[in-house]
């Protein structure tokens, strides 16, 4: 009985608070990350030499450095050149830039997978460049990039827990605090784990639904 009371009065409100912070971290990071990814991916395919090189360096660095290192750079490093960010802002900033680099890989691959011949065919029908991108390139690239980018968002949900390491108290952080107070580490972290599991499962279920709705013959995504 006492256990139940404790869970109802202490654990659930704290974790709920944390969950809301986590979601507030994940949603803007996912959106910004995607925008950055599309931007960088397009530059890596269609950009001039200078832009291409810059984009490639960006991707190499942000995919090569562990996310923890990146978060530390933004949170502990930037104040040394006079830029101060709250833990929350630094987290969103770090997540967006990092996942943008990963998204750009899928965007780039999707753009490259569109056969050149189809662009010739569109031009031979009298399409302008803009119309060609809208009616031929994007619908196909979107489908090809979707599985990879969706996976990246699922990774982002999990990696959002690293915000705790730069003192942004989200779901993991609230769990850590309440667990250290009560010494019920196993129970609390099990519950926290289940919450993340639910988040990632719902996200991947949604992703599969979108993929299935958009599935066309010849666009089956390659297994693993």
């Amino acid at each position, binding site marked *: 009985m006492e256990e139940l009371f404790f869970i109802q009065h202490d654990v659930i409100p704290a974790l709920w608070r944390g969950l809301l912070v986590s979601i507030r971290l994940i949603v803007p990071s996912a959106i910004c990350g995607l925008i950055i990814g599309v931007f960088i991916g397009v530059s890596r395919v269609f950009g001039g030499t200078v832009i291409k090189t810059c984009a490639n360096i960006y991707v190499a660095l942000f995919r090569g450095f562990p996310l923890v290192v990146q978060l530390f750079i933004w949170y502990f490093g930037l104040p040394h050149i006079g830029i101060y960010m709250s833990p929350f802002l630094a987290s969103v900033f770090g997540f967006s830039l990092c996942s943008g680099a990963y998204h750009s890989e899928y965007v780039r691959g999707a753009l490259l997978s569109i056969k050149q011949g*189809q662009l010739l065919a569109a031009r031979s029908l*009298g399409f302008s460049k803009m119309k060609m991108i809208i009616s031929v390139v994007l619908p196909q690239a979107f489908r090809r990039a979707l599985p990879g980018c969706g996976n990246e968002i699922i990774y982002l949900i999990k990696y959002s827990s690293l915000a705790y390491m730069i003192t942004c108290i989200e779901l993991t952080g609230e769990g850590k605090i309440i667990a250290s107070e009560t010494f019920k580490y196993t129970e609390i972290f099990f519950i926290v784990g289940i919450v993340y599991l639910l988040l990632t499962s719902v996200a991947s279920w949604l992703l599969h639904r979108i993929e299935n709705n958009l599935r066309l013959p010849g666009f089956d995504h390659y297994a693993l």
Partner: protein
Amino acid sequence: MKMIRNSVLRVEGMTKRYGQKEVLKNASLTVNEGELKILIGPSGGGKSTLLQCINFLVTPDAGRVWLKGEEIIRTHKRALYAYRQKVGMIFQDFNLFDHLTALNNVTIGLVRVRGMHKQEALDKAVYELERVGLKDHIYKYPAQLSGGQKQRVSIARALAMDPEVMLIDEPTSALDPELISEVLAVIENLRANGMTMVMSTHHMGFAREVADEIVFLEDGCILETGTPDKIFLRAECERTRAFCSKILELYGNA
């Protein structure tokens, strides 16, 4: 005996270089209304390049093009897009849009480029697909069609734009042998209906039977032009004779 025909397409002095290599040297030709001109010659001789230079998919280094007496200014975007609508193009490897059904492959140009009403475009697309014998396949995606069917969809896609002239680039060379005849039959049918066409092919039998005029291209040069009988039986140029006899030796009269 020969009717006086109006020229539909006139190409003059087409030249294209890739780096040092000149793949097209000063090629000129005139295509008259209702005429089927067939380009023959060894692979890499410049046939594809010539066809793609005609509608500026490949930017030529020099050369001018007139459609129905009006010169096309390549740098004028709007004019260029309008011109391409009037010139249908058929590619060796079909180049269907993979994300669209056969039907929508045909309608997309009508709706997005010509601004036609959706329903009108659908009706027209169905009609064109019926014409190439694909009534039962209009809702299939490219991945669900055979090579011959894909090529016929691409012909329907080009026809739907009501082109003044069609450029057809080796339409059968990516096809299995048993599928070739269905595509050639469609092209023969077009000719019977008076479509103006320029086509490159390796099918000498087909060329001899249906072409009005044959153009022999080698190393980027037009070496000889003439009726099928002239090219196959009384070619003036040594290279033409050598090419024709080699092809005949390889494939018989097919």
